Protein backbone atom coordinates (compact mmCIF):
# COMPACT_ATOMS: atom_id res chain seq x y z
CA UNK A 1 0.00 0.00 0.00
CA UNK A 2 2.75 2.43 0.97
CA UNK A 3 4.61 2.00 -2.31
CA UNK A 4 1.39 2.53 -4.24
CA UNK A 5 0.95 5.86 -2.50
CA UNK A 6 4.57 6.77 -3.10
CA UNK A 7 4.11 6.00 -6.77
CA UNK A 8 0.97 8.14 -6.90
CA UNK A 9 2.81 11.07 -5.32
CA UNK A 10 5.67 10.68 -7.80
CA UNK A 11 3.19 10.71 -10.66
CA UNK A 12 1.49 13.81 -9.30
CA UNK A 13 4.85 15.54 -8.97
CA UNK A 14 5.69 14.81 -12.58
CA UNK A 15 2.30 15.60 -14.11
CA UNK A 16 2.62 19.37 -14.70
CA UNK A 17 5.21 18.67 -17.34
CA UNK A 18 2.62 17.03 -19.56
CA UNK A 19 -0.61 18.78 -18.59
CA UNK A 20 -2.25 21.69 -20.33
CA UNK A 21 -2.76 24.95 -18.47
CA UNK A 22 -6.43 24.22 -17.96
CA UNK A 23 -5.73 20.76 -16.57
CA UNK A 24 -3.24 22.24 -14.14
CA UNK A 25 -5.89 24.60 -12.76
CA UNK A 26 -8.25 21.65 -12.29
CA UNK A 27 -5.60 19.83 -10.32
CA UNK A 28 -4.95 22.92 -8.20
CA UNK A 29 -8.62 22.84 -7.28
CA UNK A 30 -8.55 19.10 -6.63
CA UNK A 31 -5.62 19.45 -4.26
CA UNK A 32 -6.94 22.56 -2.55
CA UNK A 33 -10.36 21.09 -1.89
CA UNK A 34 -8.78 17.85 -0.78
CA UNK A 35 -6.75 19.89 1.71
CA UNK A 36 -9.89 21.54 3.10
CA UNK A 37 -11.70 18.21 3.06
CA UNK A 38 -8.91 16.63 5.08
CA UNK A 39 -9.02 19.51 7.55
CA UNK A 40 -12.75 18.96 7.97
CA UNK A 41 -12.19 15.21 8.22
CA UNK A 42 -10.38 15.57 11.53
CA UNK A 43 -13.39 16.95 13.39
CA UNK A 44 -16.17 15.79 11.06
CA UNK A 45 -14.91 12.39 10.00
CA UNK A 46 -12.80 11.04 12.84
CA UNK A 47 -14.58 12.78 15.71
CA UNK A 48 -17.95 12.59 14.04
CA UNK A 49 -18.88 16.20 14.78
CA UNK A 50 -20.50 17.37 11.57
CA UNK A 51 -19.66 20.96 10.80
CA UNK A 52 -21.51 22.53 7.89
CA UNK A 53 -19.88 25.91 8.38
CA UNK A 54 -16.21 25.24 7.80
CA UNK A 55 -16.14 27.96 5.17
CA UNK A 56 -16.14 30.36 8.11
CA UNK A 57 -12.61 29.31 9.03
CA UNK A 58 -11.42 29.54 5.44
CA UNK A 59 -12.87 33.03 5.22
CA UNK A 60 -11.38 34.16 8.51
CA UNK A 61 -7.97 32.90 7.49
CA UNK A 62 -8.22 34.54 4.09
CA UNK A 63 -9.46 37.89 5.32
CA UNK A 64 -6.81 37.97 8.04
CA UNK A 65 -3.89 37.46 5.73
CA UNK A 66 -5.39 39.75 3.05
CA UNK A 67 -5.82 42.57 5.55
CA UNK A 68 -2.34 41.98 6.95
CA UNK A 69 -1.00 42.05 3.42
CA UNK A 70 -2.48 45.51 2.95
CA UNK A 71 -0.49 46.51 6.02
CA UNK A 72 2.67 45.09 4.46
CA UNK A 73 2.81 41.70 6.15
CA UNK A 74 3.79 38.88 3.83
CA UNK A 75 1.19 36.13 3.51
CA UNK A 76 3.84 33.58 4.43
CA UNK A 77 3.44 34.94 7.95
CA UNK A 78 -0.14 36.05 7.48
CA UNK A 79 -1.26 32.49 6.85
CA UNK A 80 -0.26 31.47 10.36
CA UNK A 81 -2.01 34.48 11.84
CA UNK A 82 -5.08 33.56 9.82
CA UNK A 83 -4.87 29.97 10.91
CA UNK A 84 -4.44 30.98 14.53
CA UNK A 85 -7.43 33.31 14.49
CA UNK A 86 -9.52 30.63 12.79
CA UNK A 87 -8.40 28.17 15.48
CA UNK A 88 -9.43 30.54 18.27
CA UNK A 89 -12.86 30.96 16.72
CA UNK A 90 -13.06 27.25 16.14
CA UNK A 91 -12.44 26.77 19.84
CA UNK A 92 -15.21 29.24 20.67
CA UNK A 93 -17.75 27.56 18.39
CA UNK A 94 -16.64 24.15 19.61
CA UNK A 95 -16.92 25.17 23.24
CA UNK A 96 -20.37 26.67 22.74
CA UNK A 97 -21.53 23.50 21.09
CA UNK A 98 -19.79 20.79 23.06
CA UNK A 99 -19.96 22.26 26.55
CA UNK A 100 -23.71 22.74 26.26
CA UNK A 101 -24.36 19.33 24.82
CA UNK A 102 -25.20 20.20 21.23
CA UNK A 103 -24.94 17.04 19.25
CA UNK A 104 -25.64 15.87 15.74
CA UNK A 105 -28.10 18.09 13.98
CA UNK A 106 -27.98 20.87 16.55
CA UNK A 107 -24.24 21.18 16.24
CA UNK A 108 -24.63 21.39 12.46
CA UNK A 109 -27.04 24.29 12.91
CA UNK A 110 -24.62 26.05 15.24
CA UNK A 111 -21.80 25.85 12.70
CA UNK A 112 -24.04 27.07 9.89
CA UNK A 113 -25.20 29.98 12.05
CA UNK A 114 -21.62 30.89 12.83
CA UNK A 115 -20.62 30.92 9.17
CA UNK A 116 -23.62 33.04 8.30
CA UNK A 117 -22.76 35.52 11.05
CA UNK A 118 -19.26 35.84 9.62
CA UNK A 119 -20.64 36.35 6.13
CA UNK A 120 -23.11 39.02 7.22
CA UNK A 121 -20.52 40.81 9.32
CA UNK A 122 -18.00 40.82 6.47
CA UNK A 123 -20.61 42.06 4.02
CA UNK A 124 -21.59 44.96 6.21
CA UNK A 125 -18.35 46.18 7.74
CA UNK A 126 -16.78 48.62 5.31
CA UNK A 127 -13.40 48.33 7.01
CA UNK A 128 -13.02 44.80 5.69
CA UNK A 129 -14.40 45.59 2.27
CA UNK A 130 -18.12 45.27 2.80
CA UNK A 131 -20.26 43.51 0.25
CA UNK A 132 -17.74 44.14 -2.50
CA UNK A 133 -15.03 42.31 -0.59
CA UNK A 134 -11.29 42.60 -0.71
CA UNK A 135 -9.05 42.75 -3.73
CA UNK A 136 -5.41 41.79 -3.59
CA UNK A 137 -2.92 43.77 -5.58
CA UNK A 138 -1.09 41.61 -8.03
CA UNK A 139 2.65 41.81 -7.60
CA UNK A 140 3.71 38.40 -8.82
CA UNK A 141 6.26 38.29 -6.05
CA UNK A 142 6.80 34.81 -4.57
CA UNK A 143 7.89 36.40 -1.31
CA UNK A 144 4.36 37.72 -1.13
CA UNK A 145 2.85 34.36 -1.96
CA UNK A 146 2.12 35.34 -5.52
CA UNK A 147 3.24 33.39 -8.54
CA UNK A 148 3.12 34.04 -12.26
CA UNK A 149 3.00 30.40 -13.13
CA UNK A 150 -0.03 28.29 -12.29
CA UNK A 151 2.31 25.36 -11.79
CA UNK A 152 3.64 26.96 -8.63
CA UNK A 153 0.14 26.89 -7.17
CA UNK A 154 -0.10 23.26 -8.29
CA UNK A 155 2.88 22.25 -6.20
CA UNK A 156 1.91 24.35 -3.22
CA UNK A 157 -1.58 22.90 -3.20
CA UNK A 158 -0.16 19.40 -3.57
CA UNK A 159 2.14 19.93 -0.60
CA UNK A 160 -0.75 21.33 1.43
CA UNK A 161 -2.87 18.28 0.64
CA UNK A 162 -0.03 15.96 1.63
CA UNK A 163 0.66 17.91 4.82
CA UNK A 164 -2.96 17.84 5.91
CA UNK A 165 -3.06 14.11 5.19
CA UNK A 166 0.13 13.72 7.19
CA UNK A 167 -1.46 15.48 10.14
CA UNK A 168 -4.50 13.22 9.90
CA UNK A 169 -2.26 10.14 9.68
CA UNK A 170 -0.33 11.22 12.76
CA UNK A 171 -3.51 11.81 14.71
CA UNK A 172 -5.01 8.53 13.52
CA UNK A 173 -2.29 6.37 15.02
CA UNK A 174 -1.94 8.17 18.34
CA UNK A 175 -4.15 8.10 21.40
CA UNK A 176 -5.85 11.33 20.25
CA UNK A 177 -7.14 9.75 17.05
CA UNK A 178 -8.13 6.48 18.68
CA UNK A 179 -10.14 8.41 21.27
CA UNK A 180 -11.84 10.41 18.50
CA UNK A 181 -13.09 7.29 16.74
CA UNK A 182 -14.60 6.07 20.01
CA UNK A 183 -16.11 9.47 20.78
CA UNK A 184 -17.80 9.29 17.41
CA UNK A 185 -19.37 5.96 18.42
CA UNK A 186 -20.53 6.63 21.96
CA UNK A 187 -19.55 9.62 24.09
CA UNK A 188 -21.12 8.39 27.30
CA UNK A 189 -19.27 5.09 27.19
CA UNK A 190 -16.08 7.07 26.61
CA UNK A 191 -16.69 9.16 29.70
CA UNK A 192 -17.22 6.03 31.75
CA UNK A 193 -13.83 4.81 30.53
CA UNK A 194 -11.98 7.92 31.65
CA UNK A 195 -11.89 9.90 28.39
CA UNK A 196 -12.18 13.68 28.73
CA UNK A 197 -14.58 13.94 25.81
CA UNK A 198 -14.90 17.73 25.84
CA UNK A 199 -11.16 18.25 25.69
CA UNK A 200 -10.63 15.94 22.75
CA UNK A 201 -13.55 17.27 20.74
CA UNK A 202 -12.24 20.80 21.26
CA UNK A 203 -8.76 19.76 20.23
CA UNK A 204 -10.09 18.21 17.04
CA UNK A 205 -12.02 21.40 16.32
CA UNK A 206 -8.96 23.57 16.88
CA UNK A 207 -6.69 21.50 14.62
CA UNK A 208 -9.37 21.35 11.95
CA UNK A 209 -10.15 25.05 11.97
CA UNK A 210 -6.46 25.99 12.07
CA UNK A 211 -5.80 24.04 8.89
CA UNK A 212 -8.91 25.44 7.23
CA UNK A 213 -7.75 28.91 8.17
CA UNK A 214 -4.38 28.30 6.55
CA UNK A 215 -6.29 27.25 3.44
CA UNK A 216 -7.97 30.62 3.43
CA UNK A 217 -4.69 32.34 2.63
CA UNK A 218 -4.12 30.08 -0.35
CA UNK A 219 -7.66 30.84 -1.52
CA UNK A 220 -7.19 34.57 -1.19
CA UNK A 221 -3.87 34.75 -2.96
CA UNK A 222 -4.76 32.42 -5.75
CA UNK A 223 -8.02 34.18 -6.58
CA UNK A 224 -6.73 37.65 -5.74
CA UNK A 225 -10.10 38.49 -4.27
CA UNK A 226 -12.33 37.65 -1.34
CA UNK A 227 -16.06 38.01 -1.57
CA UNK A 228 -18.04 37.42 1.63
CA UNK A 229 -20.68 35.37 -0.14
CA UNK A 230 -18.13 33.17 -1.84
CA UNK A 231 -15.69 32.59 0.95
CA UNK A 232 -18.07 32.44 3.95
CA UNK A 233 -21.04 31.07 2.11
CA UNK A 234 -22.88 27.80 2.25
CA UNK A 235 -21.70 26.74 -1.23
CA UNK A 236 -18.09 26.56 -0.06
CA UNK A 237 -19.09 24.70 3.10
CA UNK A 238 -20.97 22.25 0.93
CA UNK A 239 -17.90 21.70 -1.26
CA UNK A 240 -15.85 21.05 1.87
CA UNK A 241 -18.29 18.63 3.43
CA UNK A 242 -19.36 16.67 0.39
CA UNK A 243 -15.91 15.45 -0.56
CA UNK A 244 -15.15 13.48 2.62
CA UNK A 245 -18.71 12.19 2.82
CA UNK A 246 -18.61 10.79 -0.69
CA UNK A 247 -15.01 9.67 -0.48
CA UNK A 248 -15.21 8.24 3.03
CA UNK A 249 -15.35 10.27 6.23
CA UNK A 250 -13.00 9.18 8.97
CA UNK A 251 -10.57 7.54 6.57
CA UNK A 252 -7.22 8.89 5.48
CA UNK A 253 -7.75 8.68 1.73
CA UNK A 254 -11.50 9.32 1.66
CA UNK A 255 -11.30 13.12 1.40
CA UNK A 256 -8.66 12.88 -1.33
CA UNK A 257 -10.65 10.35 -3.33
CA UNK A 258 -13.75 12.45 -2.86
CA UNK A 259 -11.99 15.48 -4.26
CA UNK A 260 -10.62 13.56 -7.23
CA UNK A 261 -14.13 12.38 -8.01
CA UNK A 262 -16.09 15.54 -7.37
CA UNK A 263 -13.82 18.34 -8.54
CA UNK A 264 -13.53 17.33 -12.21
CA UNK A 265 -17.20 16.36 -12.18
CA UNK A 266 -18.11 19.71 -10.70
CA UNK A 267 -16.01 21.67 -13.16
CA UNK A 268 -17.26 19.73 -16.17
CA UNK A 269 -20.91 20.05 -15.20
CA UNK A 270 -20.43 23.69 -14.31
CA UNK A 271 -19.18 24.50 -17.79
CA UNK A 272 -21.62 22.14 -19.51
CA UNK A 273 -24.70 23.38 -17.71
CA UNK A 274 -23.37 26.89 -17.51
CA UNK A 275 -23.23 27.08 -21.28
CA UNK A 276 -26.91 26.26 -21.52
CA UNK A 277 -27.60 28.87 -18.90
CA UNK A 278 -28.42 26.38 -16.15
CA UNK A 279 -26.25 27.77 -13.40
CA UNK A 280 -25.97 25.75 -10.26
CA UNK A 281 -27.08 22.61 -12.04
CA UNK A 282 -23.81 20.96 -11.07
CA UNK A 283 -25.45 20.68 -7.66
CA UNK A 284 -27.87 18.21 -9.22
CA UNK A 285 -24.88 16.06 -10.07
CA UNK A 286 -23.68 16.35 -6.47
CA UNK A 287 -27.13 15.42 -5.23
CA UNK A 288 -27.35 12.33 -7.40
CA UNK A 289 -23.90 11.20 -6.30
CA UNK A 290 -24.77 11.78 -2.65
CA UNK A 291 -27.94 9.71 -2.93
CA UNK A 292 -26.02 6.94 -4.66
CA UNK A 293 -23.38 6.89 -1.96
CA UNK A 294 -25.88 6.93 0.89
CA UNK A 295 -27.85 4.07 -0.68
CA UNK A 296 -25.06 1.80 -1.87
CA UNK A 297 -21.90 2.71 -0.02
CA UNK A 298 -22.78 4.67 3.11
CA UNK A 299 -19.26 4.49 4.46
CA UNK A 300 -18.01 6.26 1.38
CA UNK A 301 -16.28 5.35 -1.86
CA UNK A 302 -12.89 4.52 -0.40
CA UNK A 303 -14.06 1.95 2.19
CA UNK A 304 -16.34 0.47 -0.46
CA UNK A 305 -13.50 0.05 -2.95
CA UNK A 306 -11.18 -1.30 -0.28
CA UNK A 307 -13.63 -4.02 0.63
CA UNK A 308 -14.14 -4.79 -3.06
CA UNK A 309 -10.42 -5.29 -3.57
CA UNK A 310 -10.07 -7.37 -0.43
CA UNK A 311 -12.55 -9.88 -1.78
CA UNK A 312 -10.82 -10.03 -5.16
Amino acid at each position, binding site marked *: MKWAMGLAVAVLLALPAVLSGYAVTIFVLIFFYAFLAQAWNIVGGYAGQLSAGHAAFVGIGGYTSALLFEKGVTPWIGMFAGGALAAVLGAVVGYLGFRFGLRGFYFVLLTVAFAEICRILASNVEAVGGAVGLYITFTGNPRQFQFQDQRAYYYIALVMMLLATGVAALIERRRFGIYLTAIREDETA*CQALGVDVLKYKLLAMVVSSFLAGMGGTFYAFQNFSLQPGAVFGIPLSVEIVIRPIIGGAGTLLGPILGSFILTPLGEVSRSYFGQSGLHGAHLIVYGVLLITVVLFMPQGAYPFLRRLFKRA
Partner: protein
Amino acid sequence: MTEPEAISNRPPTLQAEQALLSISGLSKRFGGLQAVNDLSFSVGEGEIVALIGPNGAGKTTAFALVSGFLTPDAGRVVFAGRDLRGRLPHQVNALGMARTFQIMRPFPRLTVVRNVMIATLGRHADPREAERRARAVLDEIGLGAKADLPAGGLTLAERKRLELARALGTEPRLLLLDEVMSGLTEAETERIVELVRTINRRGVAILLIEHVMRAVMSLAQRIVVLNYGERIAEGRPEAVANDPRVIEAYLGDEEVTRAPA
Protein backbone atom coordinates in the same frame (compact mmCIF):
# COMPACT_ATOMS: atom_id res chain seq x y z
CA MET B 1 -1.28 -18.16 32.21
CA THR B 2 -2.73 -15.29 34.15
CA GLU B 3 -0.97 -11.97 34.57
CA PRO B 4 -2.03 -10.15 37.74
CA GLU B 5 -1.16 -6.77 36.33
CA ALA B 6 -3.65 -7.28 33.53
CA ILE B 7 -6.54 -6.68 35.87
CA SER B 8 -5.36 -4.84 38.93
CA ASN B 9 -2.08 -3.61 40.25
CA ARG B 10 -3.25 -3.73 43.83
CA PRO B 11 -2.64 -6.86 45.92
CA PRO B 12 -5.67 -8.41 47.63
CA THR B 13 -6.41 -6.78 50.97
CA LEU B 14 -8.53 -7.69 53.95
CA GLN B 15 -11.54 -5.52 54.57
CA ALA B 16 -10.16 -2.26 55.94
CA GLU B 17 -11.64 -0.09 58.67
CA GLN B 18 -11.71 2.88 56.32
CA ALA B 19 -14.35 2.31 53.65
CA LEU B 20 -13.30 2.58 50.02
CA LEU B 21 -16.64 4.07 49.02
CA SER B 22 -18.83 5.94 51.46
CA ILE B 23 -22.26 7.27 50.50
CA SER B 24 -24.19 9.38 52.97
CA GLY B 25 -27.57 11.06 52.68
CA LEU B 26 -27.67 10.76 48.90
CA SER B 27 -30.86 12.15 47.36
CA LYS B 28 -32.07 12.82 43.84
CA ARG B 29 -35.42 13.99 42.59
CA PHE B 30 -36.70 14.06 39.02
CA GLY B 31 -39.66 16.41 38.89
CA GLY B 32 -42.29 14.77 41.04
CA LEU B 33 -40.37 11.54 41.56
CA GLN B 34 -37.95 11.13 44.46
CA ALA B 35 -35.69 8.56 42.80
CA VAL B 36 -33.19 8.25 45.62
CA ASN B 37 -33.97 9.35 49.16
CA ASP B 38 -31.38 9.83 51.89
CA LEU B 39 -29.35 6.80 50.85
CA SER B 40 -26.35 5.79 52.91
CA PHE B 41 -24.09 2.78 52.76
CA SER B 42 -20.46 1.94 52.21
CA VAL B 43 -18.24 -0.51 50.38
CA GLY B 44 -15.00 -1.61 51.96
CA GLU B 45 -11.73 -2.29 50.21
CA GLY B 46 -11.99 -5.60 48.37
CA GLU B 47 -15.59 -6.23 49.40
CA ILE B 48 -18.41 -7.53 47.24
CA VAL B 49 -21.65 -5.68 47.97
CA ALA B 50 -24.91 -6.27 46.12
CA LEU B 51 -27.52 -3.58 45.62
CA ILE B 52 -30.90 -5.17 45.09
CA GLY B 53 -34.51 -4.10 44.97
CA PRO B 54 -37.57 -4.15 42.74
CA ASN B 55 -37.55 -2.36 39.39
CA GLY B 56 -37.64 1.37 39.79
CA ALA B 57 -36.13 1.22 43.25
CA GLY B 58 -33.43 3.71 42.27
CA LYS B 59 -30.48 1.36 41.92
CA THR B 60 -29.21 2.55 38.53
CA THR B 61 -29.86 6.14 39.59
CA ALA B 62 -27.67 5.49 42.62
CA PHE B 63 -24.93 4.19 40.30
CA ALA B 64 -25.20 7.29 38.12
CA LEU B 65 -24.97 9.52 41.20
CA VAL B 66 -21.97 7.67 42.59
CA SER B 67 -20.02 7.61 39.32
CA GLY B 68 -20.56 11.26 38.45
CA PHE B 69 -23.10 10.96 35.67
CA LEU B 70 -25.75 12.68 37.77
CA THR B 71 -25.42 15.44 40.34
CA PRO B 72 -27.09 14.68 43.67
CA ASP B 73 -29.54 17.12 45.20
CA ALA B 74 -28.12 16.31 48.62
CA GLY B 75 -25.60 14.00 50.23
CA ARG B 76 -21.97 13.08 49.84
CA VAL B 77 -20.01 10.49 47.96
CA VAL B 78 -16.52 9.86 49.25
CA PHE B 79 -14.29 7.51 47.29
CA ALA B 80 -10.72 6.60 48.22
CA GLY B 81 -10.71 9.45 50.69
CA ARG B 82 -11.88 12.04 48.16
CA ASP B 83 -15.18 13.88 48.00
CA LEU B 84 -16.54 13.33 44.51
CA ARG B 85 -18.67 16.46 44.51
CA GLY B 86 -18.49 18.27 41.17
CA ARG B 87 -16.35 15.67 39.45
CA LEU B 88 -17.08 14.59 35.92
CA PRO B 89 -17.47 10.89 35.06
CA HIS B 90 -14.08 10.62 33.42
CA GLN B 91 -12.43 12.14 36.50
CA VAL B 92 -14.22 9.67 38.77
CA ASN B 93 -12.95 6.88 36.55
CA ALA B 94 -9.42 8.18 36.76
CA LEU B 95 -9.64 7.96 40.55
CA GLY B 96 -10.29 4.24 40.29
CA MET B 97 -14.02 3.65 39.92
CA ALA B 98 -15.32 1.92 36.80
CA ARG B 99 -18.92 1.27 35.88
CA THR B 100 -20.73 -0.84 33.34
CA PHE B 101 -24.10 0.03 31.84
CA GLN B 102 -27.36 -1.83 32.08
CA ILE B 103 -27.87 -1.37 28.35
CA MET B 104 -24.51 -2.29 26.96
CA ARG B 105 -22.62 0.30 25.02
CA PRO B 106 -19.86 -1.23 22.96
CA PHE B 107 -18.20 0.80 20.22
CA PRO B 108 -19.71 -1.29 17.45
CA ARG B 109 -17.55 -0.29 14.51
CA LEU B 110 -14.31 -0.56 16.45
CA THR B 111 -12.62 -3.92 16.93
CA VAL B 112 -12.89 -5.68 20.28
CA VAL B 113 -9.28 -4.87 21.14
CA ARG B 114 -9.78 -1.21 20.22
CA ASN B 115 -12.79 -1.15 22.50
CA VAL B 116 -10.62 -2.18 25.42
CA MET B 117 -7.80 0.12 24.32
CA ILE B 118 -10.05 3.10 24.92
CA ALA B 119 -9.91 1.97 28.54
CA THR B 120 -6.22 1.12 28.77
CA LEU B 121 -5.11 4.29 26.95
CA GLY B 122 -6.23 6.22 30.01
CA ARG B 123 -3.26 5.05 32.02
CA HIS B 124 -0.94 4.10 29.16
CA ALA B 125 -0.76 6.80 26.52
CA ASP B 126 1.41 4.82 24.11
CA PRO B 127 -0.99 2.94 21.82
CA ARG B 128 1.32 -0.06 21.57
CA GLU B 129 1.49 -0.48 25.33
CA ALA B 130 -2.25 0.15 25.58
CA GLU B 131 -2.87 -2.55 22.99
CA ARG B 132 -0.63 -5.03 24.76
CA ARG B 133 -2.52 -4.52 28.00
CA ALA B 134 -5.87 -4.62 26.23
CA ARG B 135 -5.04 -8.01 24.72
CA ALA B 136 -3.93 -9.27 28.11
CA VAL B 137 -7.25 -8.26 29.65
CA LEU B 138 -9.14 -9.86 26.79
CA ASP B 139 -7.24 -13.13 27.23
CA GLU B 140 -8.05 -13.08 30.93
CA ILE B 141 -11.74 -12.49 30.18
CA GLY B 142 -11.82 -15.16 27.48
CA LEU B 143 -12.34 -12.93 24.46
CA GLY B 144 -8.80 -13.17 23.16
CA ALA B 145 -9.82 -15.05 20.01
CA LYS B 146 -12.23 -12.31 18.98
CA ALA B 147 -9.89 -9.42 19.65
CA ASP B 148 -9.64 -8.25 16.06
CA LEU B 149 -13.28 -8.62 15.12
CA PRO B 150 -15.71 -5.68 15.15
CA ALA B 151 -17.46 -5.41 18.48
CA GLY B 152 -20.83 -5.07 16.78
CA GLY B 153 -20.75 -8.76 15.83
CA LEU B 154 -20.43 -10.20 19.33
CA THR B 155 -23.10 -12.33 21.00
CA LEU B 156 -24.89 -11.08 24.09
CA ALA B 157 -22.72 -13.02 26.50
CA GLU B 158 -19.60 -11.85 24.69
CA ARG B 159 -20.74 -8.25 24.87
CA LYS B 160 -21.12 -8.59 28.60
CA ARG B 161 -17.58 -9.86 28.79
CA LEU B 162 -16.42 -6.95 26.65
CA GLU B 163 -18.18 -4.52 28.95
CA LEU B 164 -16.36 -6.16 31.84
CA ALA B 165 -13.04 -6.12 30.00
CA ARG B 166 -13.35 -2.44 29.24
CA ALA B 167 -14.14 -1.57 32.83
CA LEU B 168 -11.18 -3.62 33.97
CA GLY B 169 -8.93 -1.94 31.45
CA THR B 170 -9.21 1.25 33.45
CA GLU B 171 -7.53 -0.53 36.39
CA PRO B 172 -10.24 0.20 38.94
CA ARG B 173 -10.25 -0.31 42.68
CA LEU B 174 -14.04 -0.45 42.63
CA LEU B 175 -16.18 -1.94 39.92
CA LEU B 176 -19.84 -0.98 39.56
CA LEU B 177 -21.65 -3.76 37.71
CA ASP B 178 -25.16 -2.96 36.52
CA GLU B 179 -27.18 -6.13 35.93
CA VAL B 180 -24.35 -7.87 34.18
CA MET B 181 -26.07 -11.28 34.45
CA SER B 182 -29.35 -10.32 32.82
CA GLY B 183 -30.31 -12.33 29.76
CA LEU B 184 -27.68 -15.00 30.25
CA THR B 185 -28.15 -18.76 30.37
CA GLU B 186 -27.40 -20.66 33.56
CA ALA B 187 -24.01 -21.74 32.26
CA GLU B 188 -23.07 -18.26 31.09
CA THR B 189 -24.16 -16.80 34.43
CA GLU B 190 -21.97 -19.29 36.24
CA ARG B 191 -18.98 -18.28 34.15
CA ILE B 192 -19.51 -14.58 34.79
CA VAL B 193 -19.91 -15.24 38.50
CA GLU B 194 -16.57 -17.06 38.50
CA LEU B 195 -15.00 -14.21 36.54
CA VAL B 196 -16.26 -11.65 39.03
CA ARG B 197 -14.86 -13.74 41.86
CA THR B 198 -11.48 -13.92 40.15
CA ILE B 199 -11.46 -10.17 39.66
CA ASN B 200 -12.36 -9.65 43.29
CA ARG B 201 -9.58 -11.95 44.46
CA ARG B 202 -7.13 -9.55 42.83
CA GLY B 203 -8.30 -6.85 45.17
CA VAL B 204 -10.99 -5.09 43.16
CA ALA B 205 -14.07 -4.22 45.24
CA ILE B 206 -17.38 -4.92 43.56
CA LEU B 207 -20.71 -3.17 43.91
CA LEU B 208 -23.28 -4.95 41.83
CA ILE B 209 -26.88 -4.34 40.90
CA GLU B 210 -28.46 -7.68 40.19
CA HIS B 211 -31.81 -9.39 39.82
CA VAL B 212 -30.45 -12.88 39.34
CA MET B 213 -30.69 -13.99 42.97
CA ARG B 214 -28.52 -17.06 42.54
CA ALA B 215 -25.64 -14.84 41.49
CA VAL B 216 -26.31 -12.38 44.29
CA MET B 217 -26.38 -15.10 46.94
CA SER B 218 -23.21 -16.75 45.74
CA LEU B 219 -21.19 -13.55 45.28
CA ALA B 220 -22.30 -10.97 47.80
CA GLN B 221 -20.68 -10.61 51.20
CA ARG B 222 -23.21 -7.97 52.06
CA ILE B 223 -26.51 -6.92 50.53
CA VAL B 224 -28.17 -3.51 50.53
CA VAL B 225 -31.87 -3.53 49.65
CA LEU B 226 -33.55 -0.53 48.04
CA ASN B 227 -37.22 0.20 47.59
CA TYR B 228 -38.70 3.46 46.34
CA GLY B 229 -35.29 5.05 46.55
CA GLU B 230 -34.71 4.20 50.21
CA ARG B 231 -32.64 1.60 51.95
CA ILE B 232 -34.99 -0.83 53.64
CA ALA B 233 -32.54 -3.51 54.71
CA GLU B 234 -28.84 -4.29 54.84
CA GLY B 235 -26.85 -7.25 56.02
CA ARG B 236 -25.48 -10.65 55.23
CA PRO B 237 -27.25 -12.52 52.41
CA GLU B 238 -29.01 -15.06 54.66
CA ALA B 239 -30.37 -12.34 56.94
CA VAL B 240 -31.60 -10.18 54.08
CA ALA B 241 -33.22 -13.11 52.27
CA ASN B 242 -35.35 -13.83 55.30
CA ASP B 243 -36.20 -10.22 56.13
CA PRO B 244 -40.00 -9.80 55.89
CA ARG B 245 -39.73 -6.25 54.60
CA VAL B 246 -37.54 -7.42 51.72
CA ILE B 247 -39.89 -10.26 50.85
CA GLU B 248 -42.84 -7.89 50.88
CA ALA B 249 -41.05 -5.41 48.61
CA TYR B 250 -40.43 -8.10 46.05
CA LEU B 251 -43.90 -9.67 46.06
CA GLY B 252 -45.44 -9.09 42.68
CA ASP B 253 -42.16 -8.16 40.99
CA GLU B 254 -41.72 -10.66 38.13
CA GLU B 255 -38.17 -9.58 37.38
CA VAL B 256 -36.73 -11.41 40.34
CA THR B 257 -35.66 -14.93 39.45
CA ARG B 258 -34.80 -17.62 41.94
CA ALA B 259 -33.47 -19.88 39.24
CA PRO B 260 -32.36 -18.22 36.00
CA ALA B 261 -34.23 -19.16 32.82
